C-alpha cells in the first residue's frame, strides 16, 4: 500500500505527516493528531458526526482519505471556539437551549450550523433543518438544535443582547 506525505492547515496550524493511502481523514484527525473533538460514528457517511469545514465548506471527514487532503485548509470543532476553554456564540447557544444530551452528534451539528450561519446569517427554520439534515441526533428530537441555531443567529446579528 502506498503512503503519502501531506501538508494540511488545520485551525490555522500547519501539520505535516505521512499517511497510508487507506487512512480516512477523520482517523487522521483523531488518531494521528489527537484532534478528538471531531467524532466518528458510522464511518460510512450516514451520521454526520465527523463533519468538518474543508476549504470553507462542510463535508464529512469519514468520506475522504487523508492523502486527498494534501494542501487543504480545514476547520474542526476545536477551531470554532475563540480561545481554549471558551465557547463561540453558536456553542454557547447550544448550551443555552439544551441542544445536546449525549453530545455525540454535537461537533457535527456545530459544524453544519456554523457553515449555515456563514452563508445565511438569519436562516429560517426550514433552512436550519435543511442544513442539519445530514446530521443524526438520537437525543433531542432536533427542536432544541433548531432553537440554538436561531438564538445564535439573533445574537450574532445583534437582535438579542441578553442571551
Amino acid at each position, binding site marked *: 500500500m502506498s503512503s503519502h506525505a501531506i501538508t494540511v492547515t488545520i485551525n490555522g496550524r500547519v501539520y505535516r505527516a505521512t499517511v497510508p493511502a487507506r487512512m480516512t481523514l477523520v482517523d487522521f484527525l483523531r488518531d494521528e493528531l489527537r484532534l478528538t473533538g471531531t467524532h466518528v460514528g458510522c464511518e460510512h457517511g450516514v451520521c454526520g458526526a465527523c463533519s468538518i469545514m*474543508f476549504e470553507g465548506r462542510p463535508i464529512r471527514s*469519514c468520506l475522504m482519505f487523508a492523502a486527498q487532503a494534501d494542501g487543504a485548509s480545514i476547520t474542526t470543532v476545536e477551531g470554532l471556539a475563540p480561545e481554549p476553554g471558551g465557547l463561540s456564540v453558536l456553542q454557547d447557544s447550544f448550551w443555552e437551549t439544551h441542544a445536546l444530551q449525549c453530545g455525540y452528534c454535537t461537533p457535527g451539528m456545530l459544524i453544519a450550523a456554523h457553515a449555515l450561519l456563514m452563508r445565511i446569517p438569519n436562516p429560517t427554520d426550514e433552512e436550519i433543518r435543511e442544513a442539519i439534515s445530514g446530521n443524526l441526533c438520537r437525543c433531542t428530537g432536533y427542536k432544541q438544535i433548531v432553537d440554538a441555531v436561531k438564538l445564535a443567529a439573533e445574537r450574532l446579528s445583534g437582535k438579542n443582547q441578553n442571551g
Partner: protein
Amino acid sequence: MKAAEFDYARAADLDDVFRLLDGAQGEAKIIAGGQTLVPLLVMRLARPTLVVDINGIAELSGIAADETGVTFGAATRQIDALEAAGVARHAPLLKKALALVGHPQTRNRGTIGGSLANADPAAEIGLIARTLDAEIEARSSAGGRQIAADAFFTGAMSTVLSAEECLTKVRFPVWPGRVGTGFEEMSNRRSDFALVAVACQVAIDKAGVCTRIALGVGGAEPVPVRASDAEKRLIGTRLESADINAALNTLAETLDPLSDVHASADYRRRVAVHLAARTIASARDEARA
C-alpha cells in the same frame, strides 16, 4: 470499518488517468467526490488495488450552459451545479433534483459524473440523465465515445463503462418552447435515499396541448426507467387530471419495482404512481404559467 489496502495516485491530467487505469489490470477505481465509492471501500464491497484521484484535473470540472444544452465536466461538484445560474435557467429539472441529492455535506464533495458512474438505483442525477436523454462522454487511452443515457445503466451500481474508461462529460439537452418540470421523491428521512423518485418534463403548445413529455422513475427498479407508455398516452392531451390518471394506469401495470427492507414492491409501485401524477401536474402548471 476500514478499507482494505490499496495504492493511491493523484492524476495530473487525463493521460495520467489512462496510464494508471491501463496499468492496473482492471483493478483500479476512480475517485472524484468519493461519496459513493468511500462507503463501498470501507464496507469492502469494492476492493480495488489502485484508487486514481481525478480531483485535481481542471478540464474535468466546469459548467457550460446555453439554449441547446447544459454540459458538465464529470468532476463538477453537485453544490456548484445546484448554485449555477445556467443550470437554474436551462436545466430547471436537474436543479430541482440536485436540491434533494444527499445533504449539504455530501453535495459539497459529490460530483455529477461520480453519481452517474456509480449508478446507485436511488440516485437523482442518473434519473434526470435518463429522463432528459443526457449524452455521456467517456474516454480511455483507446479514444472517446458518446453513450446515450438509455444505454448507460446496466444494473444496480453497474454501467457500460469499462475499468479503463473515465467518464469525462455529461450533456443535458434543453427543450425549446413552453416547458415545465416537476420532481418528487419519497424517502424515510429527509436527505435519505429515495424509495421512489419521479421526474417529469413537459412541453405544451399555445393551446395548452402537450407536445412532448418525459416521465422518469428512479429508485423503483435497479436502473432509472422511463414510463414510455404513459408518455405516449399523454401527448396530444391537455394534461388534465383525467388524462393523467388514465395514462398512469399503464405505469402501475408496467413498473416492476424492487422489494427490500425499506419498502415492498407494491408500496413502491403505488408511491410511483402518486408521485408521477403530482410531477406531471406541477410540470403542466409550470409550463402554463
